[in-house]
Structures are given as C-alpha cells and as structure tokens.
C-alpha cells in the first residue's frame, strides 16, 4: 500500500517526538505536553476549515468549553454533585458539551440560513467575543480570574488514585492523543462523509444539487470539530491547572488560526506541526525578543501567506507529493 505524503510526514514527526524526551530536559518535555494540546486544537480547526471549507474565527469557544467543563467537574463544582471529581467524567463532559455546543451553533448558522465565507467568519468572531464576555461576567466560572488549582489527571474513577503530573507521562499521553486523533480524523476525511465535506469546500451548489443536505453536513463537521477542540481544552487544563476567560475568546481563536495557516490547512498533520512549531518558537524567541515577538510572528505569517499559501508544512507535503509523483513516473 502506498502511503500518502501527509502520512509519511506524520510518521517521521511521530518518531521524532517519541525520541525527543530522551534528548531534551523534562522541563522542555512539559512544555511539549501543552503544545500537543494546542496541536490537537489546531487539528480540530484544520478539519472544519481546511477540509470542509468552513472558516471558524471563534473556535476557542469549544476549546474553552472543554477546559471549563473539565475544571468544573474535577474541582467538584457541578451543581448538586459536590462529591464528583472524576477526570473521566470531566473528559466526557468536555467532549459532550463542546460537541453539543458546536452542533447548536452549527444548526443556528447553517440550518435554513447557509451562512458562509466572510459572513460565517464575522459571526464566529462575534460568538467568541460574546462567550468570553459571558465567562468574564460569570462568578460561577470565576470571572476574570477564572478557575484555579484545577487538579491534574487522576486515574481513579472519582478523582482518587494516582495523579499524573510528571512531565514525561503527560508528554506521551499528549503525543498518543494527538497521533490517534490525527489518524482518526484522516480516516474520517477519507470516508464517504469526509469526501462529501471536501466536496462541500470545493463546490457547495454542485453537492447540494446532487441531493446532499449540505446544512446537515456542515453541522456534523462543526460538531465533530467542536468535540475535538473540547478534548484539547480538557487536556490543556489538566496540565495548566487554570481555566481563564482568555481560553474561550477571540485571542486564542486568532492564535489557532495562525498556527493552522502557518502549518498548512490542507493536511491535519501540517496544522498540528504548525501549532507545535509556533508555540515552541514563541517560548524560545519571546524571551529574546520581548514585546517584538508578536510583530515577528505577524511578519512571518504575512510572508507565509504570500510565499507559502499552503503553509510551511503543507508546502513540504505538497513538494514531497510532486517529487514522489515524478520519481514514480
């Protein structure tokens, strides 16, 4: 079986990241645990934007819902269930709530409305701003300060049992989550549903006039992507220990858009690598550059849009594709 260039790049990256903790310090590995959560988030946006062509400029809403859901459950803040502290219930709540939220938002945007393009982008930005304001003004969610002292992953059924906070296990849990999510989403992309979503991106009217309920397809894509973003948010917060309104708002929504655009929105692995690369460079360069780092990132972003419209890793995959095609005649 001939592997796609995206799969090849993914396998090389996987080997690299499996080996990386043997080379770098635990401190650096701990950073990468967080980066993998961001990468998972980037994969969720890449699926809905790159694959299905639905530009969501407020995707942090679902990431934030996942983070807050996990925090509320593990902190024992679920109304009527103060004894509940389970990481597993928190994980399920994060995925279910973010999926349902994305489905409801999708239904509102697409059922009988057909919101698309720049209009969809504008409305999703507005959504992120509104939800961030709601989080800031909610005393239950900790207001501006957010929810602090979120416990790490605990293996017991209800917050008991061993806790996982050592960088190395977290690193490999994150890497496994990311690899499995990318592989699963690649399978979904290649399925009949996934092919229909790609067709939606290419020519919505054609797909519609072939008998596809495009609104249902869009809502399903949004829900699936939202669920994945929620999972990313949950995995983020058990490492970071802190859920703040910034996780649910416009700023992180813009960040993830840049990671996906820089990495490449035509391949899930490219988007994931984009997130890891930007966050890694940011952690290294922001110390050196201070306040000028966002300026540099912005310039790199603009240069990438002009010179590598498919993103840096997307371009790499594309070139590898063409090289392999030529090599195979």
């Amino acid at each position: 079986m001939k592997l796609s260039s995206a799969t090849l790049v993914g396998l090389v990256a996987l080997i690299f990241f499996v080996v990386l903790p043997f080379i770098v310090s635990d401190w650096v590995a701990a950073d990468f645990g967080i980066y993998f959560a961001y990468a998972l988030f980037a994969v969720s946006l890449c699926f809905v934007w790159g694959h299905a062509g639905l530009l969501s400029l407020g995707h942090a809403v679902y990431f934030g819902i996942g983070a807050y859901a996990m925090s509320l459950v593990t902190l024992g803040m679920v109304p009527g269930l103060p004894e509940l502290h389970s990481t597993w219930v928190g994980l399920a709540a994060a995925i279910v709530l973010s999926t349902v939220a994305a489905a409801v938002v999708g239904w509102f945007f697409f059922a009988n409305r057909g919101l698309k393009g720049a209009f969809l982008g504008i409305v999703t930005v507005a959504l992120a701003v509104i939800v961030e304001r709601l989080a800031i003004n909610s005393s239950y969610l900790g207001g501006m300060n957010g929810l602090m002292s979120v416990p790490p992953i605990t293996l017991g059924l209800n917050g008991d049992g061993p806790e996982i906070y050592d960088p190395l296990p977290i690193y490999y849990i994150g890497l496994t989550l990311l690899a499995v999510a990318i592989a699963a989403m690649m399978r979904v992309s290649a399925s009949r549903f996934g092919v229909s979503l790609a067709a939606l991106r290419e020519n919505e009217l054609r797909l519609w006039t072939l008998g596809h309920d495009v609104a249902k397809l869009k809502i399903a894509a949004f829900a699936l992507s939202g669920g994945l973003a929620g999972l990313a948010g949950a995995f983020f917060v058990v490492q970071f220990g802190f859920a703040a309104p910034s996780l649910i708002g416009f700023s992180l929504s813009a960040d993830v858009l840049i990671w996906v655009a820089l990495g490449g929105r035509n391949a899930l692995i490219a988007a994931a690598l984009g997130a890891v690369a930007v966050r890694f460079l940011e952690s290294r360069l922001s110390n050196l550059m201070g306040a000028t780092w966002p300026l540099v990132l912005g310039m790199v972003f603009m240069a990438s849009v002009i010179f590598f419209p498919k993103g840096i890793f997307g371009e790499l995959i594309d070139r590898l594709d063409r090289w392999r095609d030529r090599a195979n005649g």
Partner: protein
Amino acid sequence: MQDAAEGNATSGGAPFLEIISLVKSFGGVRAVDHVDLVLDTGAMRCIIGPNGCGKTTLFNLITGYLPPSSGDIRYRGQSIVGRPLHKIAADGIVRKFQVPSVFPEMTVEDNIRAAAGVRHGRSVASPAELLDMVGLTKNRRHMAGTLSHGEKQWLELAMVLSTAPRLILLDEPAAGMTRTEKTETVRLIHEIRRETNVAALVIEHDMAFVAALDCPISVMMLGRIVASGDYDTVRRDPLVREAYLGAVNG
C-alpha cells in the same frame, strides 16, 4: 448495468413529469411565461431557443433552485414546488450545469464518491462502471481540475448518473466541445438512456447535436413554448425559422 430509472412508474396514471402553466417573473420580466410540458417515464425532450428565452430558468424552477411565481410542477404524481433543492435531487431529478461543475481539487474517483452519497435505495452502476462508460477510467486518480473541458462535462455526467437519477436535466451538455467530443457525447447520451431508461430534458443550441439526439423538441421564445414536435417539424415552423433556426443556420 442495472436500471437506474427503476420505480419510475407513477401511481394513478399521472404523467412522470408535468409542468402546468409555470410562470417565473423577475420584477417586470417574465422569464418563464405559462409553460406547459409533459414528459413520460424514460422519455427525452430537447428544449431549444435563443439566449435569454428562459430555458435555464425553467431548469432552475424544476430543480427547486428558484421558486415559481405561479403554476405547478408535478413529478410522479406529486407537486414538488416548495420542496428543498436537495430533496428534489435526492428524489431523482438531478441536473448537469452548463459550465462543467465538478470538484476541481479532488480526484476524478472522489468526485464520483462524493456525488454518489444519496440514492434512497435506487440501484446504480458502480463508480468504476460509470467512469468506464464516460471514458475516464485512465484519469481516475487525476485531479478533476486538470481534465479538459470535454472530460469535465463527461465527469459531471457520470456524477449525475451516480445518484441513480430518474430524470436528468442536461444544460448544454456539448457546450464548448470539439466536433469529435460532441459526437462522443451524443453516443454517450444514447448509451445512458439505453442502459438506464432515465428520462432526460436537454437544453442545447447546436442544432446538429439536437438532430443527432433524435427526440421531440420544444422551442422556447420570450419565456413561452412556441412550437413542439420532432426535428423536421420544428425546423419547418416559420416562427422558429425566423426567430431561431434562421438566425443560426443562415
């Protein structure tokens, strides 16, 4: 190949497709003006007429892309006016656009896979058979956007057929094709109808192409159907000669 048009029979002897006094107005302009048309199960009819006479608007109305101002469209005994576009398509009325409408950044094979999602239990040829029928088997791994204009037209035809349609609406299927491609398209349409018994409405300007399709013709002018009959009858109609054929054929 299995019969894609199976189950075409309508209950109570109602016509397969019946267009009744259909009107579509855009402001003060009547693009479609009291059009009546009946199509039997498995039948084919060409609709000709000068640019702007309402042919494509008629297709837009039948497929549900536009709502009519008045009149009715009855398909297999039931009115389809007001039904969502995708439901009309899923029920078997599927259209090929004038400008080839494919998914350019997807492989030819995936174009068929994406198209074939909704069939409601109707049987249809496999994607491989469909690609073979339109002569694109060798291109199946190519991106649809890299195909020639004629190949895109054929791919779109295969995409339409992959939905197991009962009625296909072909909007200028030979537009922009070379003479050889047009001949091949005529052969293809005859083969499709022989193999699937699918009904067809065809909009076309090229009179040689229309003659080769060898089916009844309706002539539209200023939104109305002004003449109907076989090719020779239509060709002899003085109004048609003056307004359309005369201008085309000199």
